[in-house]
Each structure stands twice: as C-alpha cells, then as structure tokens.
C-alpha cells in the first residue's frame, strides 16, 4: 500500500507566508494556470464545465424561465381584470395557471438556488471549482432540455392543466399528453437537482480552503449544506410519486384510483412531503444571501453565528413536519391535523430567529444605504406579512374557511416574493460586480425596486380580501355581482407594474456599456469572493489561501496580496491539470489535491440522450426512449471511465508551502465516495416512499391485501434475496481481495457477482409474473417495488462489470481502488433495498 499521508509543515508559519515569490516564477505560474483554466471560445464554449460559466448559464436560464412564467401570469391577470372577460378560454387559462406555478417552482425557484450556489460557492470557499464540474454541466443541460420541453408545451396547446400539484383523479384522467409532460419532464429536472445537491454538499464539506474550520465557514455554506440535505429527503418522494403516477397513466396501474383499491390522497401525501420542504428549499438559500449581504452593509460580523446555524438546521428539520397543512380539508383524523398545525406554528421560532439576527446586526452596525440593502429591507417587510398570514393558515379551522381561495394565493406570493424574489434581487445587485466586473445602475435599480415592491403590494394585498370575500383560486372568470370587480382590477393593474419593474431590471442587466468595476472589493466586504482579480481570470483563485477568520478580508490584511502573488497553496499547474484542494470535514486540514474534470462534449451528449429517455415515452415512443436511455448510459460510462478516479502519474505532489499531498484517494477519504453516499441517501428515500405506499394502502383500506389475492411467490422471493446477498458479499470480497493484491480472485468475484445478481433479479421478476397489476392496487404496489429493485440490480451489475473492466485495463489496482469502494457502497444500500422488498412482498401479506 502506498502511504498517502500528507507530508510537510501545516499550518504554515508567518515566515513561510512572508517569503516572496520571484517575479519570473510568478509570471510563469500565471501563464500555466491561465492556459489550464482557459475558457474555450466559439462553438466550443458550450463544452465549458467551469463553475463560473455553468453558473452564469444556469442563472440566466432560470431568469428566462421566470420571465416566461411571469408573462403567463400577466395574461391571466388580463383575463381576470373584468368579470366575464373572453381573453382566454377556460382550457387555456388552466394550462397557464398550471404552467405558471410549475415553472416558477421547478424551473426558477429551486434551480436558481443551485445556479447561484454553483456560481458563488467556490468563490466563498476560495476553491478553484466544484468537486465535480462535469456533473454541474450535466445538471445544467438536463435542466435546459427538460425546462424547454415542459415550458414549450404551452405553445402547442398541450401543456398540463391540472394545477401545479397535479392532483388525481383530475390529472390521471386528463386525456391529453399534458400530465405526462409534467411528470416525465419535471422528473428529469428533479434528478438534475439532486445531482446539484450532491455536488454542493460535497463542495461545502470537502472543498473548503485550509484552516476554514466548520465554525468559520461563511453562513452561505451552512445554508447550502442544510438545503442540499433537504433536497435529498424532499425530492425523492416526488420522484417516487411521479413513477407511480406515470405507471398509472401509461399502464393503468391503479395507485390513485379508489375503485380498484388505490387512493388519491396518497399522491397528496407524496407531493406535499416534497412540496412543503420545497418552500424552505426556496426560502433558505435566499436568506443565505441576506446573511452575506447584511454583515457587509452593517460593516460588522454577523451577531450570533451559531444562532443562524441553529435556525437553518432547525428550520430544515421542522419543515418536514408541515406537509399536511396543505391537506387540512381532506378529512384526516382531527388529531393528525393538530400535530401538523402544532409543527407549523413551531417552525416560526427558528424562522423568526434568523430575521431577528439580521435586525440586531443592522441595529448595532453602521448601516450603509445601498441597493442590496433596499431589496433586503423590502424582502423582510413582505416576508413578515406573508409569515403572519401563514400563522393564521396553520390553524386548521381558519384554513377550512379560506382553503382554495385567493387568500392562499396572496399568502404564498407574500412568502415567495419576500422570502425568495426580493432577497435574490438583493443578491444580484450585490454579487453582480463579482460575476461580471461591471456595475449595475443605482438609479435604474431604485426604479426597479419601487416598481416591483409597489406593484407587488398593489397586486397581492387586495387578494387577501378577494379571498375572504370568497373568490376561489383557479377560476377563469367570475360573475359581476359578487363584489370582486374592483379588487381584481386593482390586482391586474398591480401585476403590470411589477412587470414594468422587471423590464427595467432586465434592461439594466442586459444593456451593453455598463461601467467597469474599478476596485476589487466595492462593498468592502469581508468574505473571500471579493479577493477575485479585476481581470476576470477563469482560475477562480490565484492561490488557495490559509484562512483563520470568518471575515478573512477584514481580519487578515495581507491575505489578498499574498493570494494574488501565489504565496499560498496550489499556485501553479505544472502538470497541466485543473486542480483544487480537498480538506478535512471539521478542521479543514489539507488532505488531497483533487484533479477535477475539464471541458467536454460528453456531458452535453449524456444530457441529450438521458433527456430523450424521459421525453420520448411522453409520446409513447417506448423503444426509442429505451434506446436513447441506453446511449445516454453509455455516454455516462465513457465520461466516468475517461475522466474520474484515473491512476495519477505520481502519487504525491507539491501543493505549495512545503506541503506534499496525495493526488488520489479512495473510500471515505475521496470526494467520489461522499458523493455516492449522499446520492444513495436520496435513492433510499425514494424507495422508502414506495414502501410507505404499501403501508399507506394497508392503513387506508381494511381490505388490503384483498381477500384471496394472488401474492408474490415466497420461495422465489427468498431465493432471489439470497442470490442478491451473495452478489453483495462478492462485491465486498472483490474489494478486499483486490486490496490485498489477489487480483485474479478479485476478478473472479467480479464475474460471479453479476451472475448471482442477474439470477437474483430474474427470480424476483419471476416471483410476480403471475400478478395482474392493473386489477388492484395491491399487485400494482408489489410490482412497483419489484421494478424499483430490479432496475437497481441492473445498475449494480453494470457497476460490477465496470470494476471488472477496471481491474483488467489498469484503472483499478491494489493501490487505486476508489471505484471498488464506491461500488461496494452502492451495494450496501442496494442489499438493504433487496431485503426490505423481499420482506414486504414475501412476508408482508402473511403477517398483515
């Protein structure tokens, strides 16, 4: 075994940092770094994977989708301006409100968090890039393809029209392709979101600069960590729900059809287990922006750093106990409603704490009047109003009165504008000089703010009243004698004022000839992103600094000069690789130099073909969809094989300041292993949601499983579980045998493993072949569990074969076994899936 312990002094002494770098060496280093990180031009620009490029594309795409969804809102407001208008017909109105909600949530609010995090997180952390740049690029292309597909449907009169939460039976029985477009297109985007979450979590935990301990990292990083974790637990239930929903649409498996034992309420549970945390997934990253802007504007450190961590983590947890408050009128037992009502009130505490922390910081600081501060102040005011109506709505009897009225519309827009849009706008004004090295206009910014802020209140404040007067949401028109006329007209006028504000903002954002930034740190901020050079070099940071403070630019006066002179870590790229530094989780001690993946077409191709496997089935081209999926998987395999966990040309390299670090890591030391762990956590959550379905149906229906129903063959189920346990043991054995140098035996295990796995998967399928899933929800949910497990068997087999090829072609040897560690981690999770499936479908019907 190679000893990969870091060698050399750490932490660096003042004398080491003060040692000057000769000018000619500096120039040569800068040339090499510039060459390695150079952004491609022309059509090859699209190959870029660097976080700054992908982040810009991502943010601009989100913004474009937001504008499109905003136009839909304006058209709806025209229709509602007067009673009995005939501007839009009912069907088109349904498509528009569905797409407005879906696009704002799935194509703007959540992806914008990922976009902005990809864009600014590495800069906060003094990192060169995210740990998996190609994954970010893949996520972006998937988002673009999925987003254009879903949003584009509105132009062909084929958009989904059952509301953004797609309740069955309305959505399951909708005759067009709209529901399928929603389900498949958005599932594809959700998978891209999870990929981004994995990347961001690993980035925060492992890519901080040396010395930036967990209690000194910028608050933004804490929020990213919390929100990334929330995405892992919130999105998978919806993906599982989408799968069941699409099985009902395509194959008539009756998950949500009560006439055959199904239950539409189950969809509502899955949707809102996603949907409510999602509100906080949208809100927290925007508060995170405020947590970066407020200390700068107050020119002092945030008051109560740990209190912010408390509120971020606390809100993250509590937000999972609120989902039923969207379902207060579904007839659940009163005591169940009361639990959710109580938790909905409790979440106010951590949410409130962070707002008070901001206020206190501003009160005792020396506040500068500036545009970002204006937007933050507006956001706080609006969000507080939305929060107050939230407290009212959390009380079930009040909710029964206003359920599905415009009161709800007003409440949710107050929380989302105040909690998301306005803080994000603050972030855009604050970070714009950093992204582009240019400055936005203050005058236009004020115009935009007052138009949006004023227009917003004009639009949505009256809606509270419209709702209390009984106007239901989602009606395309109304009678003139109900007392809603003036209120609706005011709302419509307000909507156009908001639009005017966004027009001003968009003009300012896109107009050429904005003045150039003259100083590095225009706001005199304390965090690392403002150490960036004015020349906009693509290398991220010139050298990776040693950090000892929460606000290094305020507390470490020589830091910026020393970074720019390359006196810190990784000031050079002598081997011509893109590299960033990996550090330990709590103390951020340097542990590895990570070679990150570079520009490529393969990520774009992978996204196109995987996208095809989601989009083609919408139009029932199942064979073409499957082929496209296979090509996509091939692209991903090629990408992994050619650019991840490569055996390095040397095992240790000089990282600067006398420190020598390994260039390869496997197991818990490596970022890839962490990514696998986090991904599998999300995967396990999705699986748990399907298992939850089984028990949900058992609770909801006294006749589940139905009397005399056919069951899965218990013997085949048992044998299949046994074979898959053997396959798991063989995978683990292969890792051990390889590490101890017995390569031929490891290869034998990697040949026997897939055979055992395929046998196990085959028997599992055989055990349910006699069932008729379209006859009742019981066989349907059993078959869904088998499909889930079966697909995972195939993925597991692919991974085993990948490792087999790795041992044959020199990618894996006793000293370089990262792939084997990751694959055995996958199998740990998978064997649990197998055992749970076998227990539920084999033993469940006999025990319940």
């Amino acid at each position, binding site marked *: 075994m190679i000893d990969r312990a870091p060698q050399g002094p750490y932490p660096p002494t003042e004398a080491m940092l003060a040692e000057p770098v000769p000018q000619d060496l500096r120039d040569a280093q800068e040339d090499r770094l510039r060459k390695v990180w150079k952004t491609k031009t022309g059509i090859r620009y699209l190959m870029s994977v660097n976080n700054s490029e992908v982040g810009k594309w991502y943010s601009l795409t989100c913004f474009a989708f937001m504008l499109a969804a905003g136009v839909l809102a304006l058209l709806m407001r025209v229709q509602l301006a007067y009673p009995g208008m005939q501007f839009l017909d009912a069907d088109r109105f349904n498509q528009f409100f569905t797409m407005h909600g879906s696009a704002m949530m799935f194509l703007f609010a959540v992806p914008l968090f990922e976009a902005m995090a990809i864009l600014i997180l590495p800069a906060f952390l003094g990192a060169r890039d995210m740990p998996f740049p190609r994954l970010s690029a893949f996520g972006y292309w998937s988002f673009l393809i999925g987003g254009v597909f879903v949003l584009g449907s509105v132009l062909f009169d084929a958009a989904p029209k059952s509301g953004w939460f797609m309740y069955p039976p309305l959505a399951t029985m909708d005759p067009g392709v709209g529901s399928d477009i929603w389900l498949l297109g958005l599932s594809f985007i959700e998978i891209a979101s999870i990929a981004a979450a994995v990347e961001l979590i690993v980035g925060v935990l492992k890519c901080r600069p040396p010395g930036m*301990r967990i209690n000194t990292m910028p608050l933004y990083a804490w929020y990213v960590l919390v929100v990334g974790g929330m995405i892992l637990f919130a999105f998978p239930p919806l993906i599982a729900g989408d799968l069941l929903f699409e099985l009902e649409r395509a194959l008539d498996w009756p998950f949500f059809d009560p006439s055959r034992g199904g239950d539409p309420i189950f969809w509502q549970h899955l949707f809102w287990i996603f949907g409510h945390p999602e509100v906080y997934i949208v809100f927290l990253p925007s508060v995170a922006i405020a947590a970066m802007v407020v200390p700068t504007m107050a020119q002092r450190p945030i008051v109560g750093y740990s209190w912010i961590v408390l509120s971020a983590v606390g809100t993250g947890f509590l937000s999972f*106990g609120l989902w039923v408050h969207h379902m207060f009128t579904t007839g659940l037992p009163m005591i169940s409603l009361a639990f959710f009502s109580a938790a909905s009130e409790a979440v106010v505490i951590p949410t409130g704490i962070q707002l008070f922390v901001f206020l206190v910081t501003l009160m005792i600081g020396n506040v500068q009047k500036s545009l970002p501060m204006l937007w933050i102040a507006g956001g706080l005011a609006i969000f507080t109003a939305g929060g107050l109506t939230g407290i009212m709505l959390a009380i079930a009897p009040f909710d029964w009165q206003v359920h599905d009225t415009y009161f709800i519309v007003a409440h949710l827009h107050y929380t989302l504008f105040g909690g998301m849009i306005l803080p994000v706008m603050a972030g855009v004004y604050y970070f714009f000089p950093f992204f582009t090295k240019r400055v936005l206009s203050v005058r236009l910014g004020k115009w935009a703010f007052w138009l949006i802020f004023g227009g917003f209140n004009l639009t949505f404040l009256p809606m509270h009243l419209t709702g209390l007067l009984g106007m239901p949401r989602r009606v395309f028109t109304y009678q003139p004698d109900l007392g809603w006329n003036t209120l609706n007209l005011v709302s419509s006028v307000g909507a156009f004022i908001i639009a005017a504000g966004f027009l001003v903002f968009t003009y300012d954002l896109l107009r050429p000839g904005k003045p150039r930034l003259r100083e590095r740190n225009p706001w005199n901020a304390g965090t690392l992103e403002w150490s960036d050079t004015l020349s906009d070099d693509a290398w991220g940071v010139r050298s990776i600094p040693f950090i000892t403070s929460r606000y290094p630019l305020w507390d470490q006066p020589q830091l910026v000069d020393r970074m720019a002179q390359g006196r810190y870590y990784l000031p050079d790229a002598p081997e011509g690789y893109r590299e960033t530094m990996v550090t330990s989780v709590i103390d951020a001690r340097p542990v590895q130099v990570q070679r990150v993946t570079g520009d490529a077409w393969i990520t774009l191709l992978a996204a196109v073909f995987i996208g095809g496997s989601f989009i083609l089935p919408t139009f029932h081209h199942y064979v073409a969809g499957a082929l496209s999926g296979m090509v996509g998987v091939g692209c991903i395999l090629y990408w992994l094989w050619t650019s991840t966990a490569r055996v390095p040309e040397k095992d240790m390299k000089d990282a600067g300041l006398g420190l020598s670090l390994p260039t390869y890591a496997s197991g818990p030391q490596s970022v890839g292993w962490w990514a696998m762990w986090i991904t599998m956590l999300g995967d396990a959550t999705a699986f748990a949601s399907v298992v939850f379905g089984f028990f949900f149906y058992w609770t909801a229906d006294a006749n589940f499983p139905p009397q005399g129903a056919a069951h899965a063959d218990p013997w085949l189920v048992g044998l299949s579980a046994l074979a898959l346990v053997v396959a798991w043991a063989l995978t683990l054995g292969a890792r051990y045998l390889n590490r101890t140098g017995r390569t031929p035996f490891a290869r034998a295990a990697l040949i026997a493993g897939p055979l055992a796995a395929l046998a196990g998967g085959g028997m599992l399928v055989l055990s349910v072949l006699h069932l008729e899933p379209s006859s009742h929800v019981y066989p349907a949910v059993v078959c869904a569990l088998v499909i889930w497990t079966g697909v995972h068997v195939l993925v597991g087999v692919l991974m085993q074969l990948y490792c087999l090829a790795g041992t044959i072609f020199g990618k894996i040897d006793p000293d370089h076994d990262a792939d084997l560690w990751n694959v055995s981690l996958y199998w740990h999770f998978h064997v649990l899936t197998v055992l749970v499936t076998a227990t539920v479908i084999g033993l469940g019907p006999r025990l319940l």
Partner: protein
Amino acid sequence: MPGISHRQDEEEFRGATGSLFRIALSPTIWAFHFLFCYAGAAVWCAKVGTEEGITFLRLSILGLTLLALLVIGWQGWHSYRQWAPHDNDDHVEGPHRFLGHAALLLSIISFVGVVYVALPALFIETCL
C-alpha cells in the same frame, strides 16, 4: 512544525462525523417523535380508534414524549458541557465549542418542538 499524520486524520474523520451527527441528534429525535405520533395516530384511528377511543393512543404519545424529552434533555446537557468555557480554556472559540453551542441551541428548539407536537394529544379526545 507538526506535520499531519494519517492516523490523526482518520481520527478526525471519525470525530467529525460524530460531532456533525451530534448536532443533528436532537432534531432527529424531534423528527422521529413527530413521525411516531403521526403514524401512530393514523394507524390507530384507521384500525381501532373509532370503536375503542384514543385513550391508549394518548397515553402512548405521552410516554413517547417523555422519552423524547429525556433524550433531548440529556443531549442538551452534554452540549452545554461541551460549549461552556472551562478554566484551562483559551478564549478562542474552536469548532468543538461551536458545535457544542449549536447542538445546545438545537436541543432547546427541538424540546419546544416536541412539546408543541404533543400538545394536541392533551386536548383532543376522539379521532373525528
């Protein structure tokens, strides 16, 4: 100048995941308490609650709540010990103390959260 030994790094890794787990412990207890209350009520009311009443359910929730509060209280006390400055401490807050403080605050909020969630069982006497 001290170098970094591999062993030290592995130890830190173990300590790291330990500390991060510890700050999430109290909220996780809250989550499980919530889940058990909700799932217990759902199953009880679906299967037997309409005939047999919910006294047993309410007592179970009481027991569960006391258990959850006990664990959270214990965790809060430990975090307080980790956070509170000791005599031989230098005054710079390190990650260890910080994580203690965060865990203490999270224990307090989880304690309040558990009490909130249990309150309905105090007042509501039927499934309907």
